[in-house]
């Protein structure tokens, strides 16, 4: 029986060594735990020199010493549960030895009970060992799982970072493309304008040329009349010439205004808000849009109806930007009626209505066409960039989205849409007077 304490101590070191063998602490404790063989040396010495009770006491003290030593080391803190399971054996062993020493008769009488208590204490250690082993295994599985999760998280994080970087590159690319497209959209609208402008300038120039030529003829006639002595007729001719010169000035100024308007439209980076006459601006761009379309499609015709509210206050706007919005809305309106005309009967009369009204602190510009209308299904999408119903190559899909930016972000205004499919579309721009 005496050997059981030494055995318990030895098994304790052996098991600790085994537990530690998978951890970095193993190298720190390997040597110390190898000294465990010393337990058997002590046992052998005790066996050869001491009697039974003394051997028991030595065994208990060796075990107790080992337990005290281990419990002082923080490295073994996790195994305290198992280590502490040895104390009952020490207690039983010492009690057994002391009882045998002090009251040998009593001990002999109850010897089997003491033996039983010792075995029970030893078995207790084993139970605790199994328990702690199970716990450790669970812990190990959990640790493994954690490690696996950590690895996965790291992997995913790396993947996500890579994707994020790729997306950032794509966003940069898209932004560059968008800038290019916006530039293209501006150029496209300038192209649409050019045809309208050419026509608009041609008319006044024709008048300037014609009235100049006619005036030269009139001067010849006036000379003739003066030579004849008919001053009355000469004065009448002079009056005509004066009227013609007034016409020349009028049409010259008209062409001048158109060129100035064109320069304003193409001038880039001009983002200065200036007080602007909305009626004049809207009328100008309506004509430009109409003639621009006429230049492209000679057969197209539409009735232009304007309802301008007189004496509207001037609004502070970037006129070429708002002009671009109007041009875009007019072009859309013409496109819608043109499209409907292709399918509608001969009675269909394409009509574009342009109105301006003062509504509290806003000026409203309404562009209404009796074209094909906007289906409900796409109503929400038409302001989105790149959304277009036009065939590939005909529209950039940026017109309305740019218009929205110009009116809402640039001028603090608003764009509303009313439409009935197959009947009409109405765009209402509100521009605040205060800004």
């Amino acid at each position, binding site marked *: 029986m005496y050997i059981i304490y030494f055995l318990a101590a030895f098994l304790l070191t052996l098991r600790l060594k085994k537990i530690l063998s998978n951890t970095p602490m193993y190298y720190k404790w390997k040597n110390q735990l190898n000294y465990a063989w010393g337990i058997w040396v002590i046992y052998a010495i005790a066996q050869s020199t001491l009697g039974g009770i003394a051997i028991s006491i030595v065994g208990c003290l060796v075990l107790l010493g080992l337990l005290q030593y281990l419990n002082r080391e923080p490295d073994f803190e996790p195994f305290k549960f198992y280590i502490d399971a040895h104390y009952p054996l020490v207690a039983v062993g010492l009690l057994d030895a002391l009882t045998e020493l002090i009251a040998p008769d009593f001990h002999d009488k109850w010897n089997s009970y003491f033996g039983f208590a010792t075995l029970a204490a030893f078995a207790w250690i084993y139970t605790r060992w199994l328990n702690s082993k199970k716990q450790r295994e669970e812990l190990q599985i959990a640790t493994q799982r954690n490690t696996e999760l950590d690895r996965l998280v790291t992997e995913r994080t790396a993947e996500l970072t890579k994707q994020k970087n790729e997306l950032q590159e794509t966003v940069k690319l898209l932004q560059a493309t968008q800038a290019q497209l916006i530039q293209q959209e501006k150029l496209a609208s300038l192209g649409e304008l050019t045809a309208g402008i050419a026509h608009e300038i*041609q008319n006044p120039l*024709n008048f300037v*040329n014609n009235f100049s030529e006619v005036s030269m*003829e009139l001067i010849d006639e006036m000379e003739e009349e003066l030579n004849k002595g008919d001053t009355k007729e000469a004065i009448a001719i002079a009056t*005509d010439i004066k009227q013609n010169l007034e*016409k020349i000035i009028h049409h010259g100024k008209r062409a001048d205004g158109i060129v100035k308007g064109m320069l304003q439209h193409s001038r880039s980076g001009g983002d200065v808000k200036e007080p602007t006459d909305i009626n004049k601006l809207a009328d100008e761009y309506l004509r430009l849009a109409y003639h621009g379309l006429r230049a492209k499609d000679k*057969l197209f015709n539409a009735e232009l109806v304007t309802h301008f509210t007189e004496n509207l206050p001037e609004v502070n706007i970037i006129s070429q930007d708002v002009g671009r919005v109007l041009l875009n809305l007019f072009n859309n309106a013409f496109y819608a009626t043109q499209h409907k005309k292709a399918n509608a009967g001969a009675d269909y009369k394409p009509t574009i209505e342009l109105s301006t009204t003062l509504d509290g602190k806003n000026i409203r510009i309404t562009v209404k066409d009796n074209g094909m209308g906007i289906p409900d299904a796409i109503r929400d999408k038409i302001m989105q960039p790149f959304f277009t119903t036009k065939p590939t190559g005909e529209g950039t899909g940026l017109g309305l989205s740019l218009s929205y930016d110009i009116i809402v972000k640039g001028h603090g205004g608003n764009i509303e849409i009313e439409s009935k499919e197959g009947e009409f579309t109405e765009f209402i721009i509100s521009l605040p007077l205060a800004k």
Partner: protein
Amino acid sequence: MKILVVDDEADVQPLFLQRFRKEIREHELEFDFALSGEEALVYLQEKHSEVVLILSDINMPGMSGIDLLSRIRHDYNAPPPPIVMMITAYGDDENHRQAIENGANDFLTKPLDFSLLKEKLKTLLA
């Protein structure tokens, strides 16, 4: 000879009156004007029998010159049918084809060459 000029530009009127000053004074030609196709039709309702020649712009807001031409050929083509000359700033084939198809007698481009127009009128008068 009475000529109806249809053009949405009002200043066409003094221009024609001065360009044909001599002819008007000598009562060879007489001009009336309409600012739109619609206006021209109202005018024709009363005076279609007097008008010998109609000069019409194609490109006008509302009723186009081509529409006006087909209405004239449809409603006022009783012999002798009026001579219709179409004028346009866009002197392209498609416009020309349409004008001729709808019964135009001639096709002129802007800016109007008045001496050419005078020549044409002379041959008509002769």
